[in-house]
């Protein structure tokens, strides 16, 4: 038999009480919304940037690889065009297309990096579909494309943007040389995908590409479309390819680059999540407060027969409403912020990883949905704790206001214990062998939340210490402030935790960047030993792979003031584990000019070993290929097939995260028959002025080739500029996290002070002056800031160690020298106290303004 239903409040009326509460406490609600909005905005902005970078890469890749499944590639100088002709004349595969590619720019086309794509239109149709539709061009329209030198076809959108029309001439800068070209055709892509694929692509015939790049008789690669089961086709092809020419899958080649940027993107995502976490503290805090405020109301409701479930749903629905509004605002804000983050991230990726020819991509709906979902779900989940709290208290106890505080004080030790458990768990996660970046971030979050759990106990202890001291110094107020804070520990500790996490992130990230900067400075000092560097201007800040004109080196060698001119050849060679950047050097001091992680020989024996075929590998490469055991070799594709090279040392290198290796120029040239030079390093005679020589060389060499001629200091400055650019977004995120925390503290204080209005009124009535009340409030907030700052010191320190030794290692394979200046710590405590004090100003001002009677009447 069913029991008779108890008398119930009409549900709508019940929810009205909740929503009206939100409306009445406008400040409180607004602060919650701001907290969520900021967290979501940061997440959306970063996600948009990541998505945009990923899409730019996809589109760039698609415009050049198209539907190819495999590629035939040769050595550093490409492969002989005859390889393609032989394949086609024997029809070894159904679909094969020759490709020559080069990143170029044009003063008439905004000097942006563009992809020069040399193709054979007769072979290319199955690979790249440039036109989704259209009319048939007349044969005479195609004639210039095939016959005239410098004939370029581009999309009509690009042409319109740069005011080019059919027949317009413009200059293309290719490896530092300006070549005249003209518009031989315009493509009108029918759909937006085709349009975006063509964005930044200059299409030329393979003959034109050979002539513009100087690669006569050569191809960069041959694209193939092989059937699903490609084994038979590969077995037919392989024996017919000359030695040194390899066939590989497109996925393998692209995967390498995608893996590189994945770590970078994941780092940004993790940082953006941190902003959301700080925002969640704020929500938790505010919701808890709202529940505490309404304990009496809930008690009454329970007495009226409202069930626990209904109370729970009421509180959660409030949170849901706030979450929806906050997320919506956050998405709008995120899109606005995204404009700058997309630029920052794309810039960094261009600097460090690959050159995209895609300038702008649309806003990804997925990023927005992700942000909304994260905001709403996180808000509701966070609110579930206070909601459960509100629902689980028996009706009578709910009316007692001090019950929660008593419970909180009891829970202090338990919370601290959980904190220790979380930190221990985090540290254990880091020990997992072969643990990836995801586990790394998991551990990091565990440690941070673990430290945050100490907020309550830290405050309780600090206040116990502070009370007598402050009492002596400031009298009654000095004793009151610590006690007030401990009395409201359930809210104050959460606010302190939020501020602490934000400050700790500031410290951790600052220490990481400082250490990184310090490491790079030391590394540059050791590595850049020449006085002047010459290279071909490129689009990638860390490595320029353009070839210097052979006429340049003789000029440099005989230049007055030049003691020695060393040359470097940097190329990308294939290994079974993917492409590897190889630098061949003729510098016999290379052994002494590197810092070694692992020297397998005395530094003065290194050069001899290198002349004997030994190589030096960078730390990231050693990580990537697993070269830490002695007797390891790196296999490289040579004209005679794969050949192993013995590793004679592992050096620190921060130039790229895929890794690179050094070999002796003599060894390289004897194997690859490549006399090209990528960079020249000049040592000057004592007394010669490097700036002066650079300028003079610039004047003289400019006639041969447009070159970057940089004195040591200029190059160093440039590297540091790239470095700072790379971390610009990190710094921006750090500021945002602090902002969220600041708003958190502000809201907590505001609420605390509002709650204490009656108490304040009594204090005023008892004779406390407005000034004293002001002082009390500021003291309370200052103490909260100080607590957060003090707890942030160990947390930030731990975070920086994690970032340096776990996250960076796993993301980029770099070992950073830990440098711990005092400044970030002092700054952090200052930030904590100042933001707390700032947050206290408004509540203090409000209290001071109100007359005692008014305050009491307000009750």
């Amino acid at each position: 038999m069913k029991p008779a239903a108890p008398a119930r409040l009409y549900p709508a009326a019940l929810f009205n009480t909740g929503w009206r509460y939100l409306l009445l406490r406008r400040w409180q609600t607004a602060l919650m919304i701001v907290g969520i909005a900021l967290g979501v905005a940061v997440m959306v902005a970063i996600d948009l940037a990541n998505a945009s970078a990923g899409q730019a890469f996809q589109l760039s890749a698609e415009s050049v690889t198209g539907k190819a499944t495999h590629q035939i590639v040769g050595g550093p100088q490409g492969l002989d065009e005859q390889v393609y002709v032989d394949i086609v004349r024997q029809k070894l595969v159904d679909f094969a297309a020759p490709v020559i590619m080069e990143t170029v720019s044009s003063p008439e086309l905004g000097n942006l990096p563009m992809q020069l794509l040399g193709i054979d239109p007769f072979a290319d149709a199955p690979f790249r579909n440039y036109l989704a539709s259209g009319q048939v061009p007349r044969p005479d329209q195609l004639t210039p494309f095939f016959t005239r030198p410098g004939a370029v076809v581009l999309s009509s959108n690009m042409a319109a943007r740069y005011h080019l029309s059919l027949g317009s001439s413009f200059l293309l800068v290719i490896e530092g040389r300006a070549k005249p070209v003209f518009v031989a055709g315009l493509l009108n892509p029918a759909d937006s995908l085709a349009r975006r694929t063509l964005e930044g692509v200059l299409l030329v015939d393979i003959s034109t590409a050979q002539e513009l790049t100087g690669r006569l008789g050569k191809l960069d690669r041959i694209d193939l479309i092989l059937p699903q089961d490609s084994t038979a086709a590969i077995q037919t092809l392989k024996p017919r390819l000359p030695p040194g020419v390899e066939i590989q899958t497109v996925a393998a080649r692209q995967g390498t680059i995608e893996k590189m940027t994945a770590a970078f993107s994941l780092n940004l995502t993790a940082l953006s999540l941190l902003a959301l976490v700080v925002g969640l503290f704020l929500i938790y805090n505010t919701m808890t407060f709202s529940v505490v405020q309404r304990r009496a109301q809930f008690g009454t409701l329970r007495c009226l027969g409202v069930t626990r479930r209904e109370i729970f749903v009421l509180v959660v629905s409030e949170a849901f409403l706030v979450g929806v509004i906050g997320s919506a605002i956050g998405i709008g804000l995120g899109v606005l912020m995204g404009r700058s983050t997309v630029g920052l991230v794309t810039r960094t990726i261009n600097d460090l990883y690959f050159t995209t020819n895609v300038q702008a991509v649309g806003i990804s709906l997925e990023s927005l949905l992700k942000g909304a979902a994260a905001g709403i779900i996180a808000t509701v989940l966070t609110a579930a704790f206070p909601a459960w709290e509100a629902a689980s208290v028996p009706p009578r106890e709910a009316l007692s206001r001090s019950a929660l505080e008593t419970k909180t004080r009891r829970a202090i030790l338990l919370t601290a214990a959980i904190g220790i458990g979380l930190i221990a768990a985090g540290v254990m996660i880091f020990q997992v062998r072969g643990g990836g970046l995801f586990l790394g971030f998991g551990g990091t979050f565990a440690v941070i939340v673990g430290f945050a759990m100490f907020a309550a106990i830290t405050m309780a202890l600090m206040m116990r210490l502070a009370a007598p001291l402050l009492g002596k110094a400031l009298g009654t107020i000095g004793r009151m402030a610590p006690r007030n804070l401990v009395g409201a520990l359930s809210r104050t500790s959460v606010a302190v935790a939020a501020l602490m996490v934000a400050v700790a992130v500031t410290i951790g990230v600052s220490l990481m960047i400082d250490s990184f900067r310090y490491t790079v400075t030391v590394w540059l000092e050791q590595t850049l030993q020449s006085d002047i560097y010459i290279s071909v201007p490129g689009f990638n800040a860390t490595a320029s792979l353009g070839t210097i004109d052979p006429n340049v080196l003789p000029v440099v060698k005989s230049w007055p003031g030049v003691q020695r001119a060393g040359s470097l050849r940097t190329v990308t060679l294939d290994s079974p584990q993917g492409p590897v950047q190889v630098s061949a050097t003729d510098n016999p001091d290379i052994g002494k000019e590197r810092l070694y992680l692992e020297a397998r020989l005395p530094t003065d024996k290194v050069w001899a070993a290198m002349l004997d075929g030994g190589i030096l590998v960078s730390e990231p490469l050693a990580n990537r290929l697993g070269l830490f055991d002695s007797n390891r070799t790196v296999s490289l594709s040579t004209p005679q097939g794969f050949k192993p090279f013995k590793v004679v040392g592992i050096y620190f290198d921060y130039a790229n995260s895929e890794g690179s290796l050094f070999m002796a120029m003599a060894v390289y040239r004897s194997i690859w028959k490549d006399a090209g030079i990528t960079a020249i390093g000049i040592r000057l005679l004592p007394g010669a002025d490097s700036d002066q020589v650079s300028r003079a060389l610039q004047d003289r060499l400019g006639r041969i080739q447009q070159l970057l001629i940089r004195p040591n200091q200029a190059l160093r400055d440039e590297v540091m500029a790239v470095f700072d650019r790379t971390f610009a977004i990190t710094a921006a995120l750090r500021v945002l996290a602090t902002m969220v925390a600041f708003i958190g503290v502000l809201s907590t204080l505001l609420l605390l002070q509002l709650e204490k209005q009656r108490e304040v009124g009594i204090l005023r009535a008892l004779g406390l002056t407005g000034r004293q009340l002001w002082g009390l409030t500021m003291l309370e907030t200052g103490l909260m800031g100080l607590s957060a700052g003090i707890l942030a010191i160990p947390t930030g320190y731990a975070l920086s160690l994690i970032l340096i030794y776990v996250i960076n290692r796993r993301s980029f394979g770099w070992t950073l020298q830990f440098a711990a200046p005092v400044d970030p710590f002092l700054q952090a405590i200052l930030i904590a106290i100042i933001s707390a004090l700032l947050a206290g100003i408004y509540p203090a001002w409000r209290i001071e303004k109100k007359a005692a009677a008014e305050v009491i009447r307000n009750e």
Partner: protein
Amino acid sequence: MNRESFRVIKPASRWLILLALVAGLACLIWPQQQPAPGPAFDGFAMTPDPGFAHAEGPISFNFPNDFGPHPDFQTEWWYYTGNLQAATGDHFGFELTFFRRALVPPAQMPTRSSDWAANQIYMAHFALTGVRDNSFHPFERFSRGAAGLAGATGLPVYQAWLEDWLVEQTGPRSFHLSASDSGAAIDLNLEDLKGPVLQGDHGYSQKGPQPGNASFYFSQTRLQTKGTLKLGDNAFQVNGLSWMDHEYSTSALDTDQVGWDWFAIQLDDGSELTIYDLRRKDGSIDAYSRGLIVRPDGTTQRLTTVDFAIHPEATWKSPRSGATYPSRWTLSISSENLELQITPYIADQELRLSFTYWEGAVQVQGAQNGKHLAGSGYVELTGYFQSLQGQF
């Protein structure tokens, strides 16, 4: 007017095909999907260049060199067709055609350093007809006449090729043909029984009333053929007869014609016959239509529209293009007292490539002076799917 001046109608028609197909090359490069407003490709057009050589009167040919290319002229083609029998009784038809088109006159080609810089575009068609299983397999390819991808040579040896499709001279009168694509393949040795037959006035074929609007044109009308043919999983040893046409010119078209019906017939009495009907816009037969009889001893007899008449007896509608083609004919040549029934071996030999046309193997029965005659041949039908007018 000189009778000879009308000899070039069939060559002219093939020129039309060439132009249409070269235009269609863009379809291949940039496949069509859906219509969009405005042209999808806007090229920087050059005005047609007067710098090419023109056929201006009879010349003397020098074989084998003249089997090779004549790059001073803008267009050139090598046309091989044939009917083949296997020991199993299967009958097959094949077509292997190479087209060359120069983009600019050789003297005006800019100096280029890349091997790939091309002034010549090559296109080739390969088609196999399987009579027993009623199957037809057409293929098309394009490439540039550079870097060894496609081309033609006369000396030291005559060759024309596009990727792995190839014709080459292997002896004073012998030639080798090979082509394959998607399960269809031929590998044939051809023995020329009659030697080159000069069309028109000693190979000079005037195209219209204007001087210089003409081409050079010769054929090999009886090529004894032997070799292997593959269709699907089956390989056949085959024997039969092939036919070769080679023509080069630089000329523009008169524009009253919509298409043509062309017949190349090899009879069992040792003679061959070329007949050509040019169809005008108004449906009438153009007075420029011509024919040529090659007698068993190699002597030739030219025919004009007064000498012959062609009557379509049936039609076939292509299920793919929707075009309706004549598919059986009665051909009578009153001056020779000859009447022939011409029937396609199979109805569907339509090539829907860059350009849609019908070119297929036909069976011939008939009588001359009361004596029974039989044979095989190839028929080409153009302008039934789309008029060539308006293409240029």
